[in-house]
């Protein structure tokens, strides 16, 4: 299943948040969306995921999601959004419980995703016992459990320190390399974008419009820390974004 955004525009009252977004999200690719803070990245992701209705334009599903997909459009949130009163496995079973899986099937799914995210030893832990990186791993495991057709990731690593972020980037690359998934990955961190994105969409400041789309051919697995080609890309992205970020930074907030 692919996704297509057709001329998406959205406002909150008088506030124009995003405007005229046309974008294809092809199967098996990670699309990164970068842009200065407040430019409507999270809003765009909520529109794509059906948590809000766009005022203008449409989000289209092209083709049907795979039959075994429990929740085709699945979010990974910046603040993890784990239920603090459920254990790691409880948080994962939460999203499976409403879908008529037998206990055995559920157990198999949970063991599988925990193994893929290296969390098998933390099954019975409560979120309060986990570090930020571990919490986000649980959230990623939970997202994988519902076999999404498209993962919608809203700054998933922004709440983490930079070492943990490196580890999780590696994890995501490994996950993708083993079994390519489709993702829209929102971030304001250009390094994350060049490490993970097959294409990188740069948004302007609010109202967010597409400034440029940068494609990176280098396979994810070869994008090591300090790779020269990536640094060139990152530099170029920064040149595009710099003015926008500066202008966005100097805007008065009047709400």
């Amino acid at each position, binding site marked *: 299943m692919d996704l297509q955004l057709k001329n998406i525009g959205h406002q909150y009252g008088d506030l124009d948040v995003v405007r005229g977004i046309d974008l294809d999200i092809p199967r098996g690719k990670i699309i990164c969306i970068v842009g200065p803070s407040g430019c409507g990245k999270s809003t765009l992701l909520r529109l794509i995921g059906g948590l809000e209705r766009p005022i203008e334009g449409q989000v289209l599903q092209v083709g049907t999601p795979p039959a075994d997909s429990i929740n085709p459009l699945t979010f990974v949130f910046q603040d993890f*959004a784990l*239920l603090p*009163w459920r254990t790691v496995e409880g948080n994962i079973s*939460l*999203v499976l419980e409403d879908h008529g899986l037998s206990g055995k099937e559920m157990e198999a799914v949970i063991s599988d995703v925990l193994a893929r995210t290296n969390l098998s030893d933390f099954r019975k832990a*409560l979120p309060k016992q986990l570090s930020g990186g571990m919490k986000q791993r649980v959230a990623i495991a939970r997202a994988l459990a*519902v076999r999404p057709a498209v993962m919608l990731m809203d700054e998933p690593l922004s709440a983490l320190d930079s070492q943990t972020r490196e580890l999780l980037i590696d994890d995501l690359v490994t996950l993708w390399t083993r079994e390519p998934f489709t993702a829209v990955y929102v971030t304001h961190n250009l390094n994350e974008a060049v490490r993970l994105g097959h294409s990188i969409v740069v948004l302007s400041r609010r109202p967010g419009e597409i400034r440029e789309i940068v494609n990176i051919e280098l396979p994810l697995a070869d994008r090591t820390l300090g790779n020269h080609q990536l640094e060139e890309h990152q530099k170029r992205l920064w040149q595009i974004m710099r003015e926008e970020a500066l202008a966005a930074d100097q805007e008065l907030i009047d709400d």
Partner: protein
Amino acid sequence: MTEPAERQKLVDFRGGGFVPRSNRWIGLLIFVAILIAVEIGTRTGFITSLTLPIPSDVFATFVELWRSGLLWKHLVPSITRLIVGALFGVSIGITVGILIGLFSIVRAGLAPVIAAIFPIPKIALLPLFVIWFGIDEGSKYALIAFGTFTPTVVATYGAVDNVDRSLIRMGQSFSLTWLSIVRKIVLPGAMPGILSGLRISLAIAIILLVAAEMLGAEYGIGAYILEAGSLYDLERLFVGVAILSILGVTVSAAINWVESRLLNWRV
């Protein structure tokens, strides 16, 4: 040429304090100290027998009450009233509170009504309840139920309002059913607020229990205290008061226990 050795000194410690530490022995110690002081004061005549009874006499009276079997005769109806009344009030209160929290229409309709009846001293309504529910147990149950109902409602819908919206959004993003979101996200998320509301409701329940029993009951802690008071029997009065405060402490300990079981996920 060597430099003269500089003077060395430990850096002054200025952190510490401002952290509540549990130390239950001190509380007990003060309690015992007060008892001993009163005991000595009353025995030496420094405190007249009209002011306070001798603590050991109060204890003897309590033992006597226990031996004679009258203790249970008073305690059982009181506790029954407390449990029945509070059970009605709290369960209806939680239900209504959740409905107010979940549905804007219910909120628009009921929140003002609740706000209007909240400040009424429920004891003022006892005569009315006697007419409605009868002079016997009915009016007492109703009074306690009504008295626990309002604070429970207010605490519950406040707690539902405070459930982390991002968790609810998460539930929706995984296409959980509405009922699942309420059962698995809203309710557990509101539990801390509901339990702390329960603490207040149950304290109010004990106060109302005594008031109701003072206004018309043959047996019950309230009746016992009233009778002792009208005879100016200080020993029995204090036995009654001590039983009430033990009852209060027990209820509070029970809530602590429930909290530690149910809310062990809190940081």
